[in-house]
């Protein structure tokens, strides 16, 4: 298998596609609303109407608008149908001959779709995630082939550095710099780890990417492994994502058979083996040092950095850790060039970002937009705003982030702007809250989360989150005094400064941002004495 063979597979696959492709979303959101029965009904109808020679029914990844699932799209044309039932599904085929369709149409020209720029999710919803041939037909594994035959390791690192890509897991560390550090680290054995422990509640970008396009993630990892000099990779994925786990495993098997994974990748001396490791429900394992402990089969306890994983990671070897979305950006950067990617977005935040839009908003689902798009555009124009209400705040960054109030909706979304507002970019969850949302309860909700998820290793986080939760409960129940409130704020500062890892250091953020913008709600609940 070499580059020409890949091209041949792509040509052959595209030639085998029938003129009409009925794409049925089989990502988790639509699966939960019954998309498999819809797909089955469509397949039966194609059989009964003897349309088999011109119509293909394919299960594809996420079509984006999860709140209106099950979704079905029809090519050519890309006409979209929403809330499709098994009974309505066959009527979609009527449209081929201009007949009446009972399944509700979904406007594919609404801003939710047209404002998007898809890079990491480029082929999500277009191809069958369980078919490596479909991925190859869309240009898949060409970036890896190019890297292995035309580029040096330094070239690859330089291309990624030039792109300005920053870690999409939350912290925003420059990806090129991280790759360069691991590449420079001495040591015969190195590892590449994909952080797929997407634990922030309200975030489902990585799940969607893995369910929709698992080969893209594998290709990104393989490119990274070549660049840093690793030959073994791990994907650490949370057990709450069974569909993603199954598709990744299928993809790895297919990759090995095709010769894009395993030993002698694409008939070059480069070896790359990937193993899946499944988490077991510990939020702290999203933190990189805890994640590595978990891969080693231990309790997910973080350790202080330095040493950073880039110097001493898995089993003491230099380890590159990036998250799913970061890896998913890599193939496009290699194919189209770092400069192309750097031309998108803002000065310091390049490229696009995938966001998971949920909560009190009309259009819930997954979007990918250029960095620098304003929150207002995302929430009100693309998301359609709050049905019958108004936006009070948008929560970003999960339990490490904060609530951005409505008056700041015109802020462009990039790493620095969100940090200035007291929140963080985070992994990409965006939960819209309306006027009925009680911000004290929101703060308490996140503190309860952090209290439950604290690993217990360091005292500030273990004891601090318990105390902060107790004080927030006291406030919510109108039993707190001003002294309690002051104490809560002092405790926030202490836990932030003295905790061992990111979980504790950022646990106070939701409280601090709620107090900063909605302090009156807290004060109104305090006892006057």
């Amino acid at each position: 298998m070499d580059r020409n063979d890949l091209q041949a597979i792509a040509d052959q696959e595209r030639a085998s596609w029938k003129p009409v492709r009925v794409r049925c979303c089989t990502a988790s959101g639509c699966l939960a609303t019954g998309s498999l029965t819809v797909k089955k009904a469509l397949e039966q109808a194609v059989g009964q109407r003897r349309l088999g020679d011109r119509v293909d029914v394919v299960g594809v990844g996420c079509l984006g608008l999860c709140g209106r699932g099950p979704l079905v799209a029809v090519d050519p044309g890309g006409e979209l149908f929403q809330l499709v039932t098994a009974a309505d599904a066959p009527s979609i085929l009527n449209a081929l001959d201009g007949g009446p369709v009972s399944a509700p149409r979904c406007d594919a020209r609404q801003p939710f779709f047209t404002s998007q720029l898809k890079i990491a999710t480029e082929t999500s919803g277009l191809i069958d995630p369980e078919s490596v041939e479909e991925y190859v037909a869309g240009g898949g594994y060409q970036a890896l082939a190019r890297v292995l035959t035309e580029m040096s390791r330094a070239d690859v690192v330089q291309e990624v550095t030039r792109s300005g890509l920053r870690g999409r897991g939350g912290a925003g560390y420059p990806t090129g710099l991280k790759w360069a550090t691991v590449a420079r680290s001495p040591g015969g054995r190195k590892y590449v780890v994909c952080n797929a422990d997407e634990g922030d509640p309200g975030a489902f970008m990585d799940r969607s990417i893995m369910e929709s396009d698992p080969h893209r993630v594998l290709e990104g990892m393989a490119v990274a492994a070549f660049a840093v000099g690793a030959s073994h990779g791990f994907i650490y994925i949370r057990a709450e994502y069974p569909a993603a786990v199954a598709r990744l495993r299928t993809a790895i098997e297919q990759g090995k058979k095709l010769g894009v994974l395993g030993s002698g990748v694409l008939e070059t001396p480069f070896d790359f083996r990937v193993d899946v490791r499944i988490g077991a429900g510990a939020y702290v394992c999203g933190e990189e040092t805890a994640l590595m402990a978990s891969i080693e089969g231990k309790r997910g306890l973080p350790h202080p950095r330095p040493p950073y994983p880039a110097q001493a990671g898995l089993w003491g070897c230099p380890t590159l850790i990036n998250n799913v979305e970061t890896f998913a950006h890599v193939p496009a950067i290699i194919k189209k060039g770092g400069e192309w990617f750097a031309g998108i977005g803002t000065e310091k935040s390049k490229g696009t970002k995938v966001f998971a839009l949920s909560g009190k908003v009309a259009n819930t689902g997954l979007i990918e937009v250029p960095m620098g798009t304003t929150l207002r555009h995302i929430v009100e124009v693309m998301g359609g705003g709050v049905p019958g209400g108004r936006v009070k705040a948008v929560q970003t960054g999960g339990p490490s982030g904060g609530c951005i109030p409505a008056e700041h909706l015109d802020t462009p979304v990039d790493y620095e702007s969100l940090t200035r507002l007291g929140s963080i970019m985070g992994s990409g969850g965006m939960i819209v809250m309306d006027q009925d949302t009680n911000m004290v309860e929101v703060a308490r909700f996140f503190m309860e989360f952090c209290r439950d998820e604290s690993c217990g290793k360091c005292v500030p986080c273990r004891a601090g989150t318990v105390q902060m939760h107790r004080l927030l409960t006291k406030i919510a129940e109108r039993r707190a005094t001003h002294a309690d409130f002051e104490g809560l704020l002092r405790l926030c500062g202490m836990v932030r400064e003295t905790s061992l890892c990111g979980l504790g250091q950022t646990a106070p953020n939701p409280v601090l941002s709620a107090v900063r913008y909605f302090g009156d709600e807290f004060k109104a609940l305090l006892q006057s004495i």
Partner: protein
Amino acid sequence: MAESSHPSGDDRFKGLDVTMKRHQFRPDALIEVLHKAEDLFGFLGHDALFHVARGLKLPPSRVYGVATFYHLFSLKPPGAHTCVVCLGTACFVKGADRVLKAIEECAGIKAGETTKDNQLSLSTVRCIGTCGIAPLAVYDGSTVGYQTPDDVRRHVKEWLPHGS
């Protein structure tokens, strides 16, 4: 393999042995092996934990430590049916607390408990990532969106003989 099979003669231990062998009895496979044990037995009993400790040559304390650290491992046998309520942020904003309360009242148990007749285990989860159709509940492994207190009551009552 003879030395690692279990005196009880329970075939499921054989399945566990196969998994450990596939991982070459490496201690770093502990979590993978515990997942397999949970799949086979439905929970992690002392028998299974000791068996894993012996197989991977780890102190039982280390195995127990890992089994109790991770939320998804359960050391108690589950009920005949399971109901998991998602308490992620999107579900929270859309009223997951009312959904949970409805089940708790209906079944007479709190999250993390099993009914006395072993019919239903109720638990919560921190986001399963299908926030687009919040609030969510997972009944016996299948996810259902847009849940209301009435929906969950209806669902759970089917499993409880007297509707409690």
